[in-house]
């Protein structure tokens, strides 16, 4: 008996669409089985790649499709694959990053629970493209049910000859290992993930060298997100030109958005990139608006690392460029909605607690800075803020931003800076009146 999260998806809408593809079969309770996956066209792309395409052709197709990393950074996937040196005598490794832990993000989990073969097939195609014969799936340790599900799917894939020696008689060998993490957000950052996979503490590494040149065991390594890889078989089957018909010019394809917080229908929704944020929050098919007829206070559009948006900024496309134009980011596609009763400082206190806890401790600005920020922000929220605290926070943020090896430091401060910019009066009120002005009615039922 497999475990399914009770999360809402728009699988029915996706099934009606000619183009949306990631969620097509996620409500089919048998989709995790290899037979069902094959019946739905699974492993056809992998067979096509192995029997009729050169690695360079695979990279070119993915490059032309415009697919960009869905884990948060949005780097072009095909270009990343192309960075692996062709002449390296070392082994190459493909790693699927399934360390999903950005607050607000719960999409990769659905793929692993309900359609794990889509991820495995994408991994195999990526591995072939870079000449890898051993690939890893790094799953966060807390996802016990995903680990079991992916391991079961992997065993089926071996049994059916999709993995192993001389696959489909092509002479190509490919093995897979499911690796489990130990509870550390930082391991979703690719260089920390590599250290963790090597049995080390999850500390990030200085780049260069980039993982594509010297990654796992100092060998060429590509790390891709679950959702990114799950899109690859579709690109191979239907072509780069088809994929580009979805989305915008620079943000091609579709994406899963995790819509959470104060909405009537929190869930995971696959829509084309460029889809309107306001529609996703208010349309009956998706978020269906804010509970109890409350007004909107703020939206965090891309996970806990991304700058907040004010209500008058949400009539915007969900794509990399449009969100950048309003000062935020697409991130992992985790949209967090805050209603009018929610205190901005309270929400920031929740976020900074997270980043302070998850800082790996390697870089001083992040290690010390996130701790100082948490102290300052917590005392402001509790009515103990002092004049000058906001300026101190601003100064601290400026001294963390851009001064750390990995983006965790930036991720911790960007949301804070955005709220001081957009809601400075509310921050100031806490200090002047020595109390939080908001109802903060967050009772569970």
């Amino acid at each position, binding site marked *: 008996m497999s475990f399914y*999260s009770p999360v809402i998806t728009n699988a029915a809408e996706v099934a009606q669409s000619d183009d949306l593809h990631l969620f097509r079969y996620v409500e089919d309770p048998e989709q995790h089985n290899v037979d069902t996956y094959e019946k739905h066209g699974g492993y056809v792309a992998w067979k096509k790649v192995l029997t009729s395409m050169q690695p360079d052709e695979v990279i070119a197709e993915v490059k032309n499709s415009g697919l960009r990393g869905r884990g948060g950074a949005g780097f072009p996937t095909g270009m990343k694959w192309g960075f692996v040196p062709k002449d390296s005598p070392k082994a190459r490794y493909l790693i699927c990053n399934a360390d999903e832990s950005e607050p607000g993000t719960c999409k990769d989990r659905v793929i692993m629970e309900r359609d794990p073969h889509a991820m495995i097939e994408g991994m195999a195609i990526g591995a072939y493209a870079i000449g890898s014969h051993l690939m890893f799936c790094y799953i966060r340790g807390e996802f016990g049910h995903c680990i079991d599900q992916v391991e079961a799917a992997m065993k089926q894939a071996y049994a059916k000859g999709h993995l192993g020696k001389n696959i489909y008689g092509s002479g190509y060998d490919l093995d897979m*290992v499911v690796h489990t993490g*130990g509870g550390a957000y930082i391991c979703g950052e690719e260089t920390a993930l590599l250290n963790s996979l090597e049995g080390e503490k999850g500390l990030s590494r200085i780049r260069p060298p980039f993982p594509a040149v010297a990654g796992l065991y100092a060998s060429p390594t590509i790390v891709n997100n679950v959702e990114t890889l799950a899109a690859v078989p579709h690109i191979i089957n239907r072509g780069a030109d088809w994929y580009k018909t979805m989305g915008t010019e620079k943000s091609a394809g579709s994406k899963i958005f995790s819509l959470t917080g104060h909405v009537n229908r929190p869930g995971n929704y696959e829509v084309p990139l460029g889809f309107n944020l306001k529609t996703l929050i208010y349309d009956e098919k998706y978020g269906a608006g804010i509970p109890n007829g409350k007004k909107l206070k703020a939206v*965090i559009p891309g996970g806990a690392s991304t700058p907040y948006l004010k209500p008058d900024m949400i009539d915007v496309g969900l794509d990399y460029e449009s969100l950048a134009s309003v000062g935020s980011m697409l991130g992992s596609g985790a949209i967090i909605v805050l209603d009018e009763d929610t205190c901005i400082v309270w929400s920031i206190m929740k976020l900074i607690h997270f980043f302070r806890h998850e800082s790996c401790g390697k870089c001083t600005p992040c290690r010390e800075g996130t701790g100082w920020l948490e102290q300052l922000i917590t005392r402001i929220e509790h009515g103990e803020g002092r004049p000058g605290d906001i300026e101190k926070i601003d100064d601290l943020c400026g001294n963390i931003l851009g001064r750390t090896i990995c983006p965790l430091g930036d991720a911790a401060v960007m949301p804070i800076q955005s709220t001081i910019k957009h809601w400075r009066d509310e921050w100031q009120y806490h200090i002047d009146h020595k109390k939080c002005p908001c109802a903060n009615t*967050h009772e569970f039922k």
Partner: protein
Amino acid sequence: MILTEESVKAIKEKVKLYPQRKSAILPALTIAYRQVGHLSDEIYQEISRATRIPYVEIAEAATFYTMFPKAPRGKYLIQVCHNISCALLGADSLIGYLEEKLGIKKGETTPDNLFTLISVECLGSCATAPMMQINNDFYENLTRAKVDEILEELKAKA
């Protein structure tokens, strides 16, 4: 020996999967944790013997990650997510409710050693908030009635 023969065998199998044996540290710790419920210096030693990885390297990795605690916990470890999406839907009040039901504070274990209550960072159940993880299982879209039912069920099973 604390680790069972089965666990040791599983750990040795893990070592074979990797080009470098040190990579098996986290999987080995996971196997040990799933069996025992916590870790200890003795368990590090046993993993070291089973994997031929130096003890200090195992201890170094184990102490960095949150999933390998040394303190023994109750039979059921209740972990409530307190991050933003869950907090917006009442994670703090859920923790308060559990404290009241169990008669303990966050971080404590019930006197009968049945339940330990802690709060943790995001568990990837943001669209089914609020939620808690008990041992290996996720419980989502929680309400007071559901929490009552889950606790009763676990008590009956214990």
